[in-house]
């Protein structure tokens, strides 16, 4: 789904919650994943000139997890490890989104370049 406006971010959160519901995830894991998605989706809107996010399920039945992939074609992040560090922001916000999202999920991957934009992958299991 497309991410262009703040209401798209809200929509992505709802989709994230539904995906977690589909794998029978616990309430706490769902809240964590939804929050992480909110951070990444909002970054794509604010810094990445808008993007796209998709949700898929993987793994054996009974122990499935949800994967969110968020990509944008924005300017990219020059120094990824600096951006992940707590408190780093080029905006006027808290600078906790990337680091926080990383701590909230089971797997976090980010790649970024000025040519291709930014891609963030989040994976979260049910418990």
């Amino acid at each position: 789904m497309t991410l262009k406006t703040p209401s798209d971010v809200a929509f992505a959160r709802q989709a994230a919650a539904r995906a977690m519901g589909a794998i029978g995830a616990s309430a706490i894991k769902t809240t964590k994943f939804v929050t992480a998605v909110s951070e990444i989706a909002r970054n794509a809107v604010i810094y990445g000139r808008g993007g796209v996010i998709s949700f898929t399920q993987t793994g054996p039945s009974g122990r499935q997890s949800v994967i969110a992939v968020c990509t944008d074609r924005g300017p990219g992040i020059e120094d990824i490890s600096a951006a992940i560090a707590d408190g780093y922001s080029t905006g006027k916000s808290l600078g906790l989104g990337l680091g926080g999202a990383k701590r909230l999920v089971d797997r976090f991957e980010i790649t970024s370049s000025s040519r291709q934009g930014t891609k963030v992958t989040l994976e979260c299991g049910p418990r």
Partner: protein
Amino acid sequence: MPNEVTISSIIINDYERVLTEWLKVQSAEGVKRTDLVSGKESEQQSRDLLSAMAKAMPKEATDDNLDLAEPGWEPVRDALETIAENRTQRGVSTTEMGWFIGALKQPLFKILQGEIGEKPRILMREIWNVTRLIDQISLHAIETLVSKREAIIERQRAEMTEVAAPVVKIWDSIVTVPLIGTLDSFRAQTVMENLLDAIVQWEAEVAIIDITGVSTVDTMVAQHLLKTAAAVRLMGAECVICGISPKIAQTVVNLGVELPNIVTRVDLESGLAYAFERVGVIAGRG
């Protein structure tokens, strides 16, 4: 009057007074969209909703077990259906719908304060019950309104659940505002401005922000809460944030957000207990 004053007994026995006060607050808050819904219609709708509540209340729980889906609440759900139908046709927004119902809190608080003001603990319990009930009715009304707008695409729906709620005065120098739905976009700003205005208007010392109805607290919401608390403090008042569920607390900690100098409480009841202590209504907790 029965010997115990509760929200149910007030709505059942003090029906006319509640209605009159409610209509008064509606016009004071400017939620009576007289351009869209006539004063007469508004009054009729208010009357219908209140009597539906009075009908349901003797049978249904208004405490922790409150569940609007219970069969006994059917009259209320029906009344909301009719009101939503009418208001959808008139193009009333979700925010206006939220304010319309939210305006019912102030009169109920006022009557409660008058009736059981000398029993702060019972009062606190009833304030909590009123808040939960009105917020749920309000949310149900908004959901009904939204689902009636079939024309809108699902995408827009996400934002529809963003609701601005009115700030209400609970007690001399205590104001409270519930945050419901998602806090993206400019509504966060509106809530803050309303709260600051209310602090000035009512010379409040404590502002309680109830986030029970907020499903996600991400860094943007957290930053907004921090900003609001700082602004409240600048006005010489104190900010209490309540309704932080265990899963939200854990998530906020994982995010690395710190809320220094902000008083937080699990639910509205303990938030109120703290506020009452602060303004000297009760000394210490028991």
